[in-house]
């Protein structure tokens, strides 16, 4: 696996992500600066990490989505390369048009940091194959604008095509407003594009990968990627 983690001004979970990638795959990812115009040669996974790129000013992810490096990311996705956007990264790739819809302010209007439960709705992806179908996992969230919205047609399409990959639920897997931390449509926590190579999610699997974090439920996501990608030389 040859991963590249993008760094925009104001991004702040890039180290967490890089540590998780290195811990699970054994290979340190390349850190790629936003003004670069190319990805390192041979990159097979681009990760857009969490944070507050450009302070979340204007709209979260909006300014980063227009950075020079994003053209290379779009081309990478176009070629079928894997792209993972987490939290601010999800917002950025959505703003960049790699995924449909938008992420708006949490219904509570507050930033929320806590552990939630997620239901793995689709394990047939390069990002989730190490989970069981319907598995309920724990995962932390930390965001102020994770409320996924899209027009009815888009939502219907995502649902019909099984492109909702993660959904907020309670510990028993039940979907309910009380278990939805941000008011997201259909409790959507993560979606994938039609081709299955671009995943965006609000929760932070990189913050639940060792005993110190209180659990390991984030690890299978990285295990899945390691399995899907060729071993780096």
């Amino acid at each position, binding site marked *: 696996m040859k991963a590249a983690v993008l760094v925009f001004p104001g991004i702040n979970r890039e180290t967490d992500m890089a540590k998780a990638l290195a811990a699970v795959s054994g290979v340190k990812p390349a850190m790629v600066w936003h003004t670069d115009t190319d990805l390192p040669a041979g990159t097979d996974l681009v990760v857009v990490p969490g944070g507050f790129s450009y302070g979340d000013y204007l*709209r979260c992810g909006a300014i980063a989505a227009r950075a020079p490096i994003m053209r290379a990311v779009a081309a990478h996705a176009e070629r079928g390369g894997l792209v993972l956007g987490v939290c601010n990264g999800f917002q950025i790739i959505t703003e960049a048009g790699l995924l*449909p819809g938008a992420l*708006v302010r949490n*219904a509570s*209007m507050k930033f929320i940091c806590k552990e939630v439960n997620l239901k793995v709705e689709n394990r047939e992806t390069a990002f989730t194959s190490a989970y069981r179908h319907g598995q309920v996992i724990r995962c932390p969230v930390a965001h102020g604008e994770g409320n996924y919205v899209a*027009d009815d047609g888009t939502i219907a399409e995502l649902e019909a095509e099984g492109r909702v990959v993660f959904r907020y639920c309670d510990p028993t897997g039940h979907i309910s407003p009380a278990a939805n931390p941000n*008011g997201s449509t259909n409790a959507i926590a993560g979606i994938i594009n039609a081709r299955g190579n671009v995943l965006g999610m609000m929760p932070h699997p990189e913050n639940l990968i060792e005993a110190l974090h209180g659990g390991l439920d984030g690890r299978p996501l990285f295990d899945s990627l390691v399995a899907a990608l060729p071993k780096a030389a």
Partner: protein
Amino acid sequence: MKARVVVTLKNGVLDPQGKAIEGALASLGFDGVGEVRVGKVIDLELKATDKAAAEAEVKAMCERLLANTVIENFAVQFVG
């Protein structure tokens, strides 16, 4: 020249901020308030002197950055 861009949410797009304000106004005793929607104004100082050119430029800025046309509409006004 000064331009003001007003960015508002499209009809039908959920507006948590508007909802929160609705609730807060009601609990403050302002009971004559129906729907509340929140948007943005972006005031720009422009070096351009030609209005038509400026208009086209600001429209381009909106489409490329200032508004997310998936969920937002925009309108441009000129002052002075």
